[in-house]
């Protein structure tokens, strides 16, 4: 996983988003075991307590669940995964529209261009 942290937001939040993206995109497939807190913290170069908080958020969102003995398992609930994927897609779409708006295109023009692009 490639970790990117920006300056403007809490680190744990960014970590949990990136982990969620990793789960949706299949870096961590359904039913697989997530690396340990310490391992993930080392990979991302962050404090283990921060990573712990990010993983707790994943659990709350239902994307991962804690196994009593051995770390965390990615959920196999396809509905939950689909929901997370949709949420992520919505963000991407609104980012696109926002970017186009900044360039001075309205929504209709933006949609038109998207159509043009997919031809």
């Amino acid at each position, binding site marked *: 996983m490639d970790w990117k942290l920006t*300056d403007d937001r809490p*680190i744990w*939040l960014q970590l949990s988003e990136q982990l969620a993206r990793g789960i949706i995109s299949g870096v961590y497939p359904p039913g697989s075991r997530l690396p340990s807190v*310490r391992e993930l913290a080392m990979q991302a*170069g962050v404090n283990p307590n*921060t990573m712990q908080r990010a993983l707790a958020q994943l659990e709350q969102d239902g994307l991962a669940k804690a196994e009593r003995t051995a770390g965390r398992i990615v959920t196999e609930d396809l509905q939950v995964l689909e929901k997370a994927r949709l949420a992520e897609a919505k963000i991407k779409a609104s980012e696109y529209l926002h970017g186009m708006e900044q360039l001075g295109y309205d929504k209709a023009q933006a949609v038109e261009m998207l159509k043009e692009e997919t031809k």
Partner: protein
Amino acid sequence: MNEKLIECSGLGKRYGAKRALDCVDLSVGRGRIIGLLGPNGSGKTTLIKILCGLLQPTSGKVAIAGEAIGAKSKAIISYLPDRTYFANWMNASDMFDVFEDFYADFDRKKAESMCKSLGIEPKEKLKTMSKGTKEKVQLVLVMSRKAQLYLLDEPIAGVDPAARDFILNTILTNYNQEGTVVISTHLIADIEPVLDEVIFLKEGKIMRHQSVDDIRSEEGKSVDALFREIFRAHPVEGGEF
């Protein structure tokens, strides 16, 4: 085990008329990585030296794991000073000998393997080492102790970015749930992601003591950016050419 590793109340230190620390109240728990941040001359080193027992406070109280500063507190503190204190003729394994004699919790094997992964030749004399390599050796010594409190005074200032990453990783892998690491530095951006909380010192006073993520969500900016904002020095204006 005492939950509070560091407790200071009303701590002050004066050098003549100069107040280096002014009424510092501080309480630090276990299992944390803490950044001690402040511009030059804000009292970072003075605070660390008081915690180690190298300086006597002028006023106030300090306790380390519930004990006053003394032999007991020194046994559980691993301190990285801001300058080298070893003799020039020594090499890394001489220094390992010294640490082995002095500290019961020193793990020589760990120190040797860390030196190896940093590419430090154990027989090279301190005299011929570069500034960065000397710093690395000292950090290896300090982090190879199984202490409860690590006080690192400017551990990353003199080393290259690759070594900096190694050092931060070393800190991350070696600290334990009972231990706490205090890192004083002004290179905030580099260490920000590994910190739990930060302490901002300004002119001997604690301005802020908060978790990194709380600062980020409250301020909408990084600790580094906040630091620059608080401590921005304004260039003197005027002057004609």
